[in-house]
C-alpha cells in the first residue's frame, strides 16, 4: 500500500515534468516567450470568467433549491420571528449587492481583455462616482443598523416579571434544567456544595450539614494517612497541602452555615431538577439563567433563535416566549419525530458534539401537569433531616 502511494507520487511528478517540457517546447515553436501574451489565449481566459460566473451562480441556486427546504423551520418564539424578518431584509440587500458587484466584476473581466493596439483609458478617479458609492452604502447600512439594533434592544430588554424561571446548568458533558418551583425563586448555589447527590451545588440547610460532615470525614481520613506517611517525603507535603485545602473549603461552608442561622437557605427546597428533556408552556415568557460547572459551554436553541454562553463564575441570562408547541411544529414540518433542541455551541471538550437536551413546548395545562410530576430537590427522602434542622433553627 505504502509502496503504491510512493509509486503514484513519483508518477505524478514524472508526468508533471513531461508536461512542462511539452509546454515549453510548444511555446518556443510558436515563438512567444513568457513575457508576451497570446491574444487568443488571453481572450479565452477573459471569457472563462463568464463561464465561472455562470457556474458560481448556478451552484448557489442549486444549493438553495436542494438545501433550502432543510433549513431551520420558522422561528418558534416571539423575538425569533423578529430576527427572521431582520434576516430576510438583510438577505434581500446582500443578494442585490452580491449580484450587482459580481455581474460587473465578471462582465468587465470578460470584456476588457488585452488588445495589442488598444490602450486602456487613463482614469485615475472620479469624485462624483466615489461620493455616490461611499454615501449609498452608508445610507443602506444606517438602515440595517437601525433595524438590527431596535430588534436587539427588544430582545435584550429586562426579563418580564410574569415569566417562569428556569436555570440551564452545563457541565462536561450534559445539561440539567432547574425549575424555580412554587416560590418562583431559584435557590442559591456554590461549587463547594457539589457532590454526587447535589450536582448543581444547591445550598439548603441540609446540604450544608451533609457537606460539613463529608468534609470533616475526609479530613479525618487524610490526617490518618498523614500519620502513616514517611516524614519529610513528598507524600507528606502533598497530604498536608490537601488537608489545608479541605480546611479552607470547610471554612467557606461554615460561613454559609452562619448566614443560614440568620436566614435559612430555603428557596432551593422546592427547585426541580430535570435531565434529558425539559418542558415549557407556550405563550409564556421563559426567563433563563445559565451557569456552568467547569468550562464555558453555550446554550444554543436554534429553533427559538436563542443562544447564550454559560460561563463559570458568572450567571448569564436570556429570555424568550415560545409561540409554537412541539405538536404544532411536528405538524408544520410533517415530521412526527421532530423535537426542539438544546445543543452545546461552545467547544468544551471531547464530547462537545453530543451535549443535547430535548425541549417540549406544550399547553399551560400539560406543562403544569408535567411539572407537578417532577420531584423537588428536597424531596421526601430528606424530609426527616429537614424537620430536625428546622427544629434546631427554631431553637436558635
Amino acid at each position, binding site marked *: 500500500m505504502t509502496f503504491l502511494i510512493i509509486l503514484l507520487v513519483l508518477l505524478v511528478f514524472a508526468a508533471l515534468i513531461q508536461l512542462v517540457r511539452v509546454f515549453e517546447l510548444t511555446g518556443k515553436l510558436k515563438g512567444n516567450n513568457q513575457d508576451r501574451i497570446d491574444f487568443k489565449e488571453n481572450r479565452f481566459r477573459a471569457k472563462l470568467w463568464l463561464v465561472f460566473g455562470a457556474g458560481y451562480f448556478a451552484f448557489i441556486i442549486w444549493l438553495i433549491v436542494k438545501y433550502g427546504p432543510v433549513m431551520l423551520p420558522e422561528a418558534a418564539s416571539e423575538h425569533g420571528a423578529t430576527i427572521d424578518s431582520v434576516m430576510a431584509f438583510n438577505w434581500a440587500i446582500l443578494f442585490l449587492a452580491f449580484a450587482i458587484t459580481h455581474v460587473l466584476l465578471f462582465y468587465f473581466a470578460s470584456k476588457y481583455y488585452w488588445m495589442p493596439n488598444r490602450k486602456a483609458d487613463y482614469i485615475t478617479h472620479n469624485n462624483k462616482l466615489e461620493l455616490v458609492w*461611499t454615501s449609498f452604502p452608508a445610507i443602506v447600512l444606517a438602515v440595517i443598523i437601525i433595524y*438590527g439594533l431596535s430588534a436587539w434592544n427588544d430582545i435584550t430588554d429586562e426579563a418580564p416579571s410574569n415569566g417562569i424561571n428556569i436555570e440551564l446548568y452545563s457541565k462536561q458533558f450534559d445539561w440539567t434544567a432547574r425549575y424555580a418551583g412554587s416560590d418562583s425563586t431559584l435557590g442559591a448555589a456554590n461549587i463547594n456544595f457539589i457532590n454526587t447527590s447535589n450536582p448543581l451545588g444547591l445550598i439548603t440547610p441540609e446540604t450544608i450539614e451533609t457537606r460539613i460532615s463529608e468534609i470533616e470525614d475526609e479530613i479525618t481520613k487524610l490526617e490518618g494517612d498523614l500519620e502513616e506517611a514517611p516524614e519529610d517525603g513528598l507524600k507528606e507535603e502533598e497530604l498536608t497541602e490537601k488537608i489545608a485545602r479541605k480546611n479552607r473549603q470547610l471554612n467557606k461552608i461554615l460561613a454559609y452555615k452562619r448566614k443560614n442561622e440568620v436566614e435559612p437557605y430555603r428557596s432551593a427546597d422546592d427547585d426541580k431538577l430535570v435531565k434529558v428533556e425539559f418542558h415549557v408552556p407556550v405563550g409564556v415568557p421563559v426567563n433563563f439563567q445559565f451557569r456552568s460547572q467547569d468550562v*464555558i459551554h453555550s446554550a444554543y436553541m436554534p429553533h427559538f433563535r436563542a443562544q447564550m454562553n454559560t460561563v463559570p463564575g458568572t450567571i448569564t441570562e436570556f429570555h424568550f416566549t415560545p409561540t409554537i408547541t412541539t405538536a404544532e411544529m411536528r405538524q408544520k414540518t410533517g415530521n412526527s419525530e421532530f423535537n426542539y433542541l438544546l445543543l452545546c455551541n461552545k467547544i468544551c471538550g471531547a464530547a462537545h458534539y453530543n451535549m443535547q437536551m430535548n425541549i417540549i413546548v406544550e399547553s399551560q395545562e400539560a406543562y403544569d401537569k408535567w411539572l407537578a410530576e417532577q420531584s423537588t430537590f428536597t424531596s421526601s427522602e430528606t424530609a426527616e433531616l429537614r424537620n430536625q434542622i428546622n427544629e434546631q433553627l427554631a431553637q436558635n
Partner: protein
Amino acid sequence: MATHAHEHHKESFVSKYIFTMDHKMIAKQFLVTGMFMATIGMIMSILFRIQLAWPGESFKFLTFFLGEKWAPGGVLDPNMYLALGTIHGTIMVFFLLTAGLSGTFSNLLIPLQIGARDMASGFMNMLSYWFFFTASVIMLVSLFVESGPAAAGWTVYPPLSALPQAIPGSGLGMTLWLVSMTLFIASQLIGGLNYIVTIVNLRTKGMTMTRLPLTMWALLVTAILGLLSFPVLLSAALLLVFDRMFGTSFYLSDIYIAGEALENSGGSPILYQHLFWFLGHPEVYIILLPALGLTSEIISNNSRKPIFGYRAMIGSILAIGFLSFIVWGHHMFVTGMDPFIGAVFTFTTLLIAIPSAVKAFNYITTLWKGNIRFTPAMMFSVAMVSTFISGGLTGIILADSALDINLHDTYFVVAHFHIVMGLSAVLAMFAGVYHWYPKMYGRMLNMKLGYAHFWLTFVSGYGVFFPMHFLGLAGVPRRYYTNSEFPLFDAFIDMNVLMTVFAIVGSAAQVIFFFNFFYSMVRGPKASQNPWQANSLEWTTPVEHIHGNWPGALPEVHRWAYDYSKPGKDEDFVPQTVPLAEGETDGEH
C-alpha cells in the same frame, strides 16, 4: 551610503542562505517556511474533513499518520479531532497568513519598492525570521507530545485551555503552544517595527508618501496594527501561563472539575476573550490588508490602467486599520456582555463595511475600460475580489448582534471567515508569488501549470466553503466531531461528502504549485528585468540579486506608481524613475 560596501564578495553558504541579513533572502525564507507549515495545516484539514464526511468509518491511513492512540482502528479520536482543528487554525492564521504572507512580501517589497538598500536593521530582520522559525519548530514538536497538542480551538479560551483536567490537549501541548506563540509574537514585533521604520525613513529621493505603491501603504498599516495589537495577545497569553502554572485566577472562578472544587475565585474567562479579540480582530486585517495591497498592484499592472481612486484606497486602508481596533466585541455578543456595549460594537463593525465597499468598487472600476492581461497572478487577483465581496457581505449578517445570536459559532461563521480571510488571503498570496517570482528567483513560473493550479484552487475553495453557509443557517455548530448525533442534521450527509471531495481536490492541486515552484527555480525560463512592464521600483533592479539592490546610485522617483496607459506616451507604462515631461501632471489628476 557608500557603494563599495555593497560590492560582490565571496560569502559562506551559512551567511548567504541561513543566517542572512539580506531582505530578499529573508523573504524567501519566510515564504518557504510558510509554505511548509501550510502543507501541514492543509493535511490536517483533510484528516478532519474525512471524519466529517464519513464519521466513524475506518481509514487505515489515519492510524498510519496518527498512531493507534489517536486513531484507534482507523477512526479519528474526538480529542484528536479538536487538536487537529486547533493546530490547523493556528497554523493557517498565524504561521501562513501572518508570518508567511507579511513576512514574505514586506521583506521582499519594502526596500525594493521604496528604493532602499535594505531594511533599516538587517540584524533585527534576521532575528525576526529566526524567532518565527523557532516558533514553527516548537509548534510542530507540540504535535508529538504524549497528551496531544493544544485542543481548545485556535482561540484557546480558558478555562478549557487552562485546565488539563478539562481536555488532554491542555497539558504539555498547550504549554508548548503558548511558548511557540510567545516567540511568534516576538518575531512579529521585531519584524513590524523594522518595516515601519524602513518605510517611514528610508524612502528614496522623490518617493513621497503619496507616490508609494498601495502595497507599501497596506504593509505599513499592517505593521502598525501588529505592533499595537500583538502585545495585548502576549499579555493575554502570559496571564494564561500564570493561571496554568502559578495558581493565579485571572481567568478562573468557581470551577468544579474532575471531582474537585478549585479554589480559584474572582477571575473572569470573559476577560481573556476581550484581550484575545483585541488582537484577534485587528489580526484578520493583518491578514487581509497585505492581500489587498498585493492585488491592488497586480490588478492595476495587468489592467494596464491606474488603480482607480488611489487616495480613496489609502483612506480606506487607514479607516479599516483604525476601525479594526474598536470592533472586537462582535466576537462576544452571546457571552452575556452588556447589551448596550453589544449595540456599540454592532455599530462600529458595520461602519467597516463602508471603506471595504469602497475598496471593492475601486477594484471593479479599475478593470473597467482596462486592457487586461490575464496572467496567473491576475487570475488569482480577480478571484480574490470575488471572495472578498462574497465573504465580506456575510460579515454584515454576523455583525448584526440580533442575527448573530443564532449564527454565532455555527458553520456560517466558518464559511464567512474562510471565504473572506482564508480564501482571499491565500488567493492573494498566490497572486503575489506568481507576480514576484521572477523578482525572487530570477526565473519565470510555468504559466500553464499556473492556470491549472488557479482553477482547481479557486473552484475547490468555493466548493468547500460556500455550502457551509447552509449548514450554519440550519443550526449546525462548529467544532463538532460529527453531526451524526442529531437527526436534525442528517439532511447534510451528502453535503459533507461534497465538501470533503472538494477539499481533497483543492489540496491535491497544491502539488502542481509546489512542483512548479521548485522546478522553475532551477529549470524555469530566465526572467527579463521587467517581465510585466511594471512601473514600480523593484523592476529597476538587476535580475541577479545583489546586496544593496541597485548597482549604482539609488534610483530617483519622479511620479506615482500608476502611470499605466498615460495619454501621450508611446508605451503603456511609465516607470517611476522617468522624469515628468514638460507640463505633465503627476498622480491623481
